[in-house]
């Protein structure tokens, strides 16, 4: 039987890999894979190689190493963190143990003549692929943590020991907690018992430490070294070294400074791992009911994720009151705004906007009158500027309550008695409103709070003129930003479909997303060029005649007209595209 399960696992893995390679025949995946691989190389590997080469040639002295005497402290602190994670695993869960099986695995394996212990073994085998992959990714991402010593291989194996042992511990703990539930011990009684035990151990430990150690004094916190020394003494006193011993053993291979130390640390780590493995395999409890429930939830979640519906996937959908009352008659486009606002968070309401705006104005005015808080006011301005930049450039990728979310309902949208441009305009309204509101607040804060040296020419009147100019400009720029991903959804629906499925992972998906983000920036830059040129020309030409404030106002009007024209052309063109859009044709393989 184990042979059959092993065959299932190996063949599934093999076929998954083969299908990933096969789909590279499609340009959208091939191009994505090339771009993604290039990004990964330049982001992680190139720096690693060039850094090593530079160190080798003496260009720079190489990475800073952790002083050897600090290693026991780092090990003890890491073990303490691991212990906290483990304890949380005994306190937080309130469900019965349920190993995660796919629906197909449940359909085939649960009625099959397979022992429960074999199913557990199969799940442990299954989880290894994910654990190894995670260990490799963490090693890659934390490649620069060379100050800990060791090398990529020892770090990778070290991470595997940590993750695999934790995984086994959580399964074992869930089995033990299920057994307690079967004996009538409720989750709350168990939590009280665990917390009581922790409190008891803490009291005993503290009493022990109190007897042997002096209380910390100000000099113990003088610098990093004195803090480390005190912590080192603390963690090596009383029962703490014994309490932390298993966790230290698990962390040993990762924190080994060199290869001999790594091999020495392998023994204790392996011992803890094998003990956990034996514990889990011997702790047979009835997990089938919980597994089936878990599998159904997981299947629903996967289906929701494949449709790009992340809030449904998180199970967070609740009926809520609309942001405004939808009148029976009026422009149909506003019905889309009303509908799509219902899919956002309830905080996005007019009263929230006005409340925050009031708080910003009052807060900035107050900070402005307090000479001692000028620095804080400047910090608020910088943070607001960052929020504005983030909203402007990344907001359109996050606020997706538009055609991207509704494309799967295109069949129904197309039966509505509306022109294509009306559907596109209606669908764009919600993200435009949301992003504009955030940008207005952020830019308003910047204008109120940002007073950097050398910007004295930015008079209150000029700030007011800038603010007034930005009010109508912001929604138009947001609409332009949003046109790009929506156009992508209509023009390249197959690409957009595969990208909507955020459960899709891999280097090719990373590359696809990078291409889209880069494309968006490029289109926006090109679209902004005529407006920016017109604005500069107008300000340059008119400020001598009518003053800076009026020149800014004239330029803002010109920019607004140009951008509105561009956005309108985009909406009209997308509407034409939507009218001709044939989902069944576009998504054919």
């Amino acid at each position, binding site marked *: 039987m184990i042979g059959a399960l092993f065959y299932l696992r190996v063949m599934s893995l093999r076929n998954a890999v083969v299908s990933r390679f096969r789909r590279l025949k499609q340009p959208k995946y091939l191009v994505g894979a090339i771009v993604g691989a290039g990004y990964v190389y330049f982001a992680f590997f190139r720096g690693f190689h060039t850094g090593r080469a530079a160190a080798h040639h003496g260009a720079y002295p190489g990475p800073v190493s952790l002083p050897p005497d600090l290693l026991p402290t780092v090990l003890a602190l890491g073990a303490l963190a691991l212990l906290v994670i483990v304890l949380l695993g005994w306190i937080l869960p309130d469900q019965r143990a349920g190993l995660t099986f796919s629906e197909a695995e449940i359909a085939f394996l649960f009625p099959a003549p397979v022992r429960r212990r074999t199913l557990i073994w199969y799940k442990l085998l299954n989880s290894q692929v994910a654990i190894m992959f995670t260990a490799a990714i963490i090693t890659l991402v934390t490649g620069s943590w060379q100050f800990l010593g060791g090398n990529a291989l020892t770090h990778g194996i070290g991470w595997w020991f940590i993750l695999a042992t934790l995984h086994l511990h959580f399964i074992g703990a869930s089995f033990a907690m299920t057994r307690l539930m079967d004996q009538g011990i409720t989750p709350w009684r168990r939590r009280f018992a665990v917390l009581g035990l922790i409190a008891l151990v803490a009291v005993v430990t503290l009493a022990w430490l109190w007897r042997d150690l002096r209380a910390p004094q100000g000099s113990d916190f003088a610098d990093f070294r004195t803090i480390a020394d005190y912590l080192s003494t603390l963690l090596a006193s009383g029962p703490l070294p014994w309490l932390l011993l298993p966790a230290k053993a698990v962390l040993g291979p990762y924190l080994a400074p060199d290869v001999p130390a790594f091999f020495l640390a392998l023994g204790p780590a392996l011992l803890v791992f094998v003990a956990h493995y034996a514990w889990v395999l011997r702790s047979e409890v009835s997990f089938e009911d919980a597994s089936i429930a878990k599998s159904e939830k997981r299947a629903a979640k996967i289906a929701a994720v494949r449709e790009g519906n992340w809030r449904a996937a998180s199970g967070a959908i609740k009926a809520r009151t609309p942001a405004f009352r939808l009148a*029976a008659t009026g422009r149909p486009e506003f019905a889309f705004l009303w509908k799509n606002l219902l899919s956002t968070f309830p905080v996005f309401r007019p009263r929230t906007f006005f409340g925050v705006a009031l708080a910003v104005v009052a807060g900035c005015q107050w900070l402005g009158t307090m000479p001692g808080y000028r620095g804080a006011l400047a910090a608020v301005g910088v943070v607001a500027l960052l929020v504005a930049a983030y909203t402007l450039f990344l907001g359109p990728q996050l606020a997706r309550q538009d055609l991207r979310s509704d494309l*799967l309902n295109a069949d*129904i949208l197309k039966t509505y*008695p509306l*022109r294509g441009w009306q559907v596109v305009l209606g669908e764009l309204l919600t993200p435009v409103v949301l992003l504009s509101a955030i940008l207005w607040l952020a830019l308003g804060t910047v204008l109120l709070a940002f007073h950097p040296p050398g910007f004295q020419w930015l008079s209150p009147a000029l700030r007011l003129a800038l603010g007034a100019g930005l009010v109508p400009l912001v929604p138009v720029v947001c609409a332009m930003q949003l046109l790009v991903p929506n156009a992508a959804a209509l023009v390249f629906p197959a690409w957009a479909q595969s990208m909507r499925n955020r459960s899709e992972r891999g280097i090719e998906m990373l590359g696809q997303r990078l291409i889209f983000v880069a494309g968006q920036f490029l289109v926006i830059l090109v679209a902004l060029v005529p407006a920016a040129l017109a604005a500069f020309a107008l300000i340059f030409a008119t400020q001598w005649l009518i003053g800076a404030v009026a020149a800014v106002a004239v330029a803002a009007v010109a920019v607004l007209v140009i951008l509105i024209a561009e956005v309108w052309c985009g909406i009209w063109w997308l509407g034409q595209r939507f009218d001709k859009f044939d989902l069944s044709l576009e998504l054919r393989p």
Partner: protein
Amino acid sequence: MIEVSGLIKRYGAFTAVKDLSFVVRPGEVLGLVGPNGAGKTTTLRSLAGIIPATAGTIRIAGQDLAADPVAAKRALAFFPDEPRLFDYLTVRQHLAFVGRIYGVANPEALAQPLLEELEIADKAEELPGALSRGMKQKLAIACGLLHSPAVMFFDEPLTGLDPLGIRRMKDSILKRARSGATVVLSSHLLSLLEEVCSHVLILKKGEKIADGTLAEVSARFANGEANVSLEEIFIRATGGTES
């Protein structure tokens, strides 16, 4: 009334619907039948304006679907086999949204009797996620009926319904037809056609094999035999294969 003339739908080199012409008058219920891949759903989706026809003319309630799609769509309702609903809108909010889109004068007054007729009035404040498959189907039907369409298209209307739901759906279709609506439905269930349809159109590989009243089509393929079942007629008409 639905008037279709020379309808062609191509996907690249593949022709899904070939030169299809027919007329369905008010009060008639036309059943579209055919083997898998015959082009039933493509035909329905073309008639409802969901996908553009490659060639041909479609008139819905006298309005040319290509020339004035908004006017034509105002007169029709399309009911897909799988109800397509918005996850974040409650039952009542769905009706409010659809009412505004179709410009229904007093949607709230119309919605309540519809919800009661379809027996989902007690679910008015629920989200689709909390509804059973049958309830979702009923909500989709309520949304389609809110603007009192003159023309209705049903794609496999009985999918996923329980026996009581099937009975109610048949009654609902017949009730709308009797009150003057033009109905086209596609289904694999020949018993549904026998009970509900006044006319039938048999498609195979995108081509019309036969159309007319049930009696006319039966007579054409019965070869003079008496009491030939509709199933037998269907098999004779389509040659018993998909290809």
